[in-house]
């Protein structure tokens, strides 16, 4: 690509260049094999992170790519003329391969399988504690009294509650696929595992080996296990759900191509989870990315810079005379260019005014055309037929308007007719029908092919599982543009109190009246 410039310090280019050599499905799979707990669905957002640390994934996958890793990590600057440059078709081909790849599902199934196994083990442990004495030494067991049987009921209900709670918290369809493990979930899974193992250890040593006859004690032991599991579930709720609710950081998200900016308040999240939240909000808040609007400004900038290339060929430590001459020459050129720049301001102003006028003229014609049309059909028709009847008369005005505002690639004929049928069905006025064409909406409003939901890359200097901090900056890169995210901490507010004595609020109304007697 000729418009690429040299970047150094970011290793993402290494990921991208690596992609050019991997035309198979394994290209991005490597990045995801490290993620243990996150799972993916067909509609999820994929975030790919370049490996910034030694990988934790299984060695078998990595064996074939060890050489490529080293090569990637030592590449610093990639210019547009190197052999690693990608063309647009390459990228599209890679992304299509990603969509069809089978290897990615394996990770998801692994996660689901692990969680189900863990859940079964945890759920069956108390039951096993209760049943094993009856199986192994039933004759020596002391009979279970009333209190003990009461405990059975409590175990049953607590297990039921635990089951429902775990289902509610953990078995939800995932929103996104994350590049690294979800740290809190992994921690909780480890905690639960250790906990259950320690209980089993105790049980095995003190109860199974010694064949304890006190059944009530065993039942109480099982009840204590279930209680502790419920408390761990409470901990899970606090860590996974409650902790990030209170807003702590304000994130400023800017789109690199046209500067559209939004601000979001987030709690204490890791960078990858914050990225997911931002992307979900991106689809609903940011106006759709329209590359056609950028070409105008680019052409103007190109024209303006055409005659102005100042190279400082001499290094900083050179001969003063030579440097002085070069500097004075460049200064002269810059001055000439500055004078030229004055006229380009004028150009910009008039161009924009002209464009504005044109857009308004077309918009007026369009609104009039549609309003005239909507009054027409008298006979009863199916909405689709009505739409097809109305459409041709206003199609031209609509097309011209879309072309003037450079939106014509966002709306196909089919979609316009569908929208027309929809607005006829719902008794919308012409203005309501036109609303989606007159203003650019968020990306979700347009067809799925515009979403590009599987092609986001998270670029960050800090590790993506580390938490957000004040001043964290990361990039979310899509094919055409990137979102620059900066973090700022919400300030700590110190409130002072001022007490106003209610008595001081009493006012005396002083009159001066005169009475005649």
């Amino acid at each position: 690509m000729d418009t690429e410039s040299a970047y150094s310090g970011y290793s993402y280019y290494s990921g991208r260049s690596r992609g050019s050599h991997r035309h198979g499905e394994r290209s991005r799979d490597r990045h995801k094999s490290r993620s243990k707990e996150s799972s993916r669905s067909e509609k999820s957002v994929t975030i790919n992170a370049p490996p910034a640390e030694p990988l934790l994934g299984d060695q078998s996958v990595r064996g074939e790519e060890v050489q490529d890793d080293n090569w990637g990590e030592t590449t610093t600057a990639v210019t547009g003329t190197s052999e690693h440059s990608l063309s647009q078709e390459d990228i599209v081909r890679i992304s299509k391969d990603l969509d069809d790849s089978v290897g990615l599902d394996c990770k998801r199934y692994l996660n689901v399988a692990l969680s189900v196994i863990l859940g079964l083990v945890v759920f069956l442990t108390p039951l096993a504690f209760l049943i094993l004495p009856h199986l192994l030494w039933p004759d020596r067991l002391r009979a279970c009294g009333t209190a003990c049987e009461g405990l059975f009921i409590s175990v049953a209900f607590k297990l039921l509650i635990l089951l429902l709670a775990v289902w509610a918290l953990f078995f939800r369809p995932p929103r996104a696929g994350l590049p690294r493990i979800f740290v809190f979930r992994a921690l909780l899974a480890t905690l639960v595992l250790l906990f259950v193992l320690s209980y089993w250890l105790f049980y095995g040593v003190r109860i199974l080996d010694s064949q304890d006859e006190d059944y009530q004690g065993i039942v109480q032991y099982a009840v204590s296990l279930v209680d502790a599991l419920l408390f761990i579930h409470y901990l899970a709720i606090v860590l996974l759900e409650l902790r990030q609710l209170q807003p702590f950081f304000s994130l400023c998200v800017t789109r690199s191509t046209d500067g559209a900016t939004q601000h979001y308040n987030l709690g204490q999240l890791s960078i990858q989870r914050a990225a997911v939240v931002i992307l979900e909000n991106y689809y609903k808040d940011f106006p759709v990315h329209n590359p056609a609007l950028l070409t105008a400004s680019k052409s103007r900038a190109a024209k303006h810079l055409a005659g102005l290339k100042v190279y400082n060929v001499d290094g900083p430590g050179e001969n003063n005379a030579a440097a002085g001459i070069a500097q004075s020459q460049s200064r002269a050129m810059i001055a000439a260019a500055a004078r030229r720049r004055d006229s380009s301001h004028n150009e910009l102003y008039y161009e924009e005014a002209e464009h504005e006028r044109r857009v308004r003229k077309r918009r007026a014609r369009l609104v009039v055309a549609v309003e005239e049309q909507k009054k027409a059909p008298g006979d009863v028709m199916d909405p689709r037929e009505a739409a097809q009847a109305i459409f041709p008369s206003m199609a031209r005005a609509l097309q011209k308007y879309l072309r003037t505002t450079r939106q014509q690639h966002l709306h196909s004929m089919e979609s316009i007719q569908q929208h027309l049928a929809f607005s006829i069905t719902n008794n919308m006025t012409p203005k309501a029908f036109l609303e989606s064409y007159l203003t650019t909406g968020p990306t979700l409003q347009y067809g799925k092919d515009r979403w590009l939901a599987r092609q986001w890359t998270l670029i960050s200097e800090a590790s993506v599982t580390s938490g957000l901090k004040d001043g964290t900056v990361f990039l979310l890169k899509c094919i055409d543009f990137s979102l620059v995210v900066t973090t700022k901490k919400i300030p700590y507010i110190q409130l002072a109190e001022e007490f106003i004595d209610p008595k001081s609020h009493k006012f005396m109304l002083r009159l001066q009246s005169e009475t005649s007697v």
Partner: protein
Amino acid sequence: MSFIPGHPVTAVVQRIEIHKLRDGDNLILGFSIGGGIDQDPSQNPFSEDKTDKGIYVTRVSKGGPAEVAGLRMGDKIMQVNGWDMTMVTHDQARKKLTKKNEDVVRLLVTRKSLENAVRQSMMQH
């Protein structure tokens, strides 16, 4: 006539006896009062001390019983029929003056000129 809280007030006073005039159902005295402890003393044009909340005569109607009896505008009323007028509200003062069963009110009033006169006469001696 300065007032020090907690100390008795001393003033040179003049006794004035006003016979009320019957006008239909009303008994009128023929003057207007202003002031009182619930009023704003700073607006009183007749008082020397602008924190004085006493009852002052603001107007004397011409030819009325008050003028006949010798009441002048700017007089401070100290007592009405024995009732104290230095620490009363405006309405209390009005009530004490307009009692329907009294035909005569005996006032003790003071004014600056009285003091001057007394001082002068004392200085002569």
